[in-house]
């Protein structure tokens, strides 16, 4: 097995795809400098720096895709998608349905995301839940080099718009450009297994929408993605020392969401902890709670997410982002709700819910007649 960095894996997979398929073009701000190797290899017609005009070049990517190209269009940071959201929300995502299935926009939007290096709340968001909410969008968030390369290939091969998000703590050149910028006296909590790892000898596409069970555990199921996956694995190790067996699932994509893998695990453990670097409210974490309820699974639920605008101050930032102590604490609380686990569908009809059980933070599904989602969270 060979190893690569997260950034190197994306570039390697992209380079292979571009060599095989002349329809693939890359454009975005500063790509001649940021993607110097691709620029040198494929020339300016295929790797093209743009003006700072996100709404123009993102919108142009949609029709370029409709007209036969396969654009991999870059946003300097996912935060800046707000400037050009129209291209994705109203156009790329709508095309297939609007055209009665007759026309598609096979494009990839590649964007760094996430925090952990003190860049403030306008440069550290993830926003994947926001974008995944729009029907027609696929949103991919790899957590390691092998997944990054394989998912990039699938994103390129996909017939519709795919948002490919690379966390800045994983992609080393982003730390170099926007965090260290030549300095060597700052530290970041970069997960080794995410920033560098084994990759296959030859790249194969990894299907979008398939979560990966990274760790089995009977006591609770932790579901996460991106950098937070590594925080969860670390937390699971700590929990194991206390005898708590936590399973960890890496979603790998927000949309489509692999509800089956999540539900299968939660059905067994009866406890779901979502660890999400995106905002807590109206979010992926809330969606997962709904998914489990809709599947008829009764489970205790908690979430560790970003609750407010991310502070610039690195200390407060570290608290705002999902971290190992927060995950361990939430998991411990969740597991302590032992014995009060709501009966699952397999247990037979459920009794009316008493007030103290309600406040314990459970998802209760009552055979489809009614669902109770009061005080869902007791932890997190």
């Amino acid at each position: 097995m060979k190893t690569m960095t997260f950034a190197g894996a994306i570039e390697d997979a992209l380079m292979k795809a571009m060599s095989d398929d002349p329809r693939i073009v890359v454009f975005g701000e500063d790509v001649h400098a940021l993607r110097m190797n691709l620029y040198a290899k494929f020339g300016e017609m295929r790797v093209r720096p743009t003006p700072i005009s996100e709404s123009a070049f993102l919108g142009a990517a949609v029709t370029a895709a409709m007209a036969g190209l396969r654009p991999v269009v870059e946003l300097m940071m996912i935060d800046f998608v707000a400037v050009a959201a129209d291209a994705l929300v109203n156009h790329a995502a709508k095309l297939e349905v609007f055209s009665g299935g007759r026309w598609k926009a096979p494009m990839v939007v590649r964007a760094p995301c996430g925090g952990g290096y003190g860049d403030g709340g306008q440069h550290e968001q993830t926003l994947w839940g926001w974008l995944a909410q729009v029907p027609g969008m696929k949103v991919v968030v790899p957590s390691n080099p092998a997944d990054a390369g394989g998912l990039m290939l699938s994103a390129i091969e996909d017939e519709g718009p795919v948002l490919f998000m690379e966390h800045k703590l994983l992609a080393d050149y982003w730390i170099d450009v926007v965090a260290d910028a030549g300095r060597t006296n700052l530290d970041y909590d970069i997960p080794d297994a995410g920033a560098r790892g084994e990759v296959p000898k030859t790249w194969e596409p990894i299907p979008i929408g398939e979560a990966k069970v990274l760790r089995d555990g009977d006591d609770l199921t932790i579901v996460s993605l991106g950098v937070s996956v590594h925080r969860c694995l670390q937390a699971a190790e700590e929990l194991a020392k206390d005898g708590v067996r936590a399973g960890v699932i890496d979603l790998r994509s927000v949309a489509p969401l692999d509800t089956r893998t999540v539900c299968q695990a939660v059905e067994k453990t009866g406890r779901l902890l979502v660890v999400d670097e995106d905002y807590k409210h109206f979010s992926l974490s809330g969606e997962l709670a709904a998914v489990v309820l809709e599947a008829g699974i009764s489970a205790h639920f908690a979430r560790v997410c970003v609750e407010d605008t991310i502070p610039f101050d690195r200390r407060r930032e570290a608290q705002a982002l999902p971290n190992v102590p927060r995950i361990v604490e939430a998991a411990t609380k969740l597991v302590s709700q032992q014995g009060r686990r709501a009966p699952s569908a397999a247990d037979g009809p459920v009794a009316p819910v008493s007030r103290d059980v309600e406040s314990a933070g459970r998802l209760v599904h009552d055979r489809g007649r009614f669902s109770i989602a009061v005080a869902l969270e007791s932890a997190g």
Partner: protein
Amino acid sequence: MQPNAEGLYRQMYKSRRFEEAVTQLWNDGHISAEMHLSKGQEAIVAGVLDHVIDGDALALEYRGTAPMVMRGVDLALLIKEFMGLEDGLCGGMGGHMHLFSPEHLAASSGIVGAAGPAACGFAFAAQHLRPDKVAVAFFGEGAMNQGMLMESINLAAAWSLPVIFVCKDNGMAVTTPSAEVTAGDLLTRARGLGAHVVSVDGTDVDEVWRAARDAFLRAREGNGPTFLHATCVHPEGHMLGDPLLRMVRSPVRELKSKVAPLMKAATTGGSSLSERAASLGSIAGMLGRVQKAQKQAANDPVERQRQRLSISDAERDELERAIDDEVQTAVAGALRSLEARS
């Protein structure tokens, strides 16, 4: 009205010394992530800010340090904000890209071009609530390709809003030469959107000051927006540790890991030989331009104004010493706050 050479120099010198102190703190690792400073733009900011009075508004980009300093915001509050301290200007929540001072109607944004709409709103509020007051937008020429800024110039002209759009043109949009991604001419463009336009040498504070005087007068009299274009040089590039500058300044360290993959990419397959050669030529040209811009930095606006002072050397030294002390006191105070916290 004539420019006050000494007053303008004081402002420019203060901004320069302050930003040098900030650079040191950033180098020492006390400030996280990106740092965009106004070094090389002092004449533009000073020449414009000299006309700002209470009730006027400032729509700033992520390079808001110099305008905040020259507007009179407390230096220690700024440094503490940059270091993320609770007693900073905005409680350490925003950082240098998001500086806000409601007392000065001064608001910043890390989004390129966002100063355009922001200035329009400030100016519209002035039309209702603060007659004769003006809103200033600061941005770079790279932002001139951002739709929202173009829309804003049109809006300001259509509504006769009292806005001064100050375009600080160093010819580089982050690491992309603006000429390669900008069609037409910026003055013609702004004029086409209905603004009055003027272009000046942005390293000459006198020139900027006079152009700004006319623009403010026009705006205060209800005659609509001016597009004030001012050329300048960024000796530190887009931000401290600018990747291109690092390659030029420390080629061995910065390029050693980059050259092998670059040559491999350029020599194995891909597009035609001529296209690949053109790419390599373009990369070399890009670095060459950065190197050349470094040399132009000799045309330093602060030094230029220093030469123009009519006060005695002793008086000038005294003026500079007072500012040095003020900056040092602010840094020392901020470092004490930092220490008290940890």
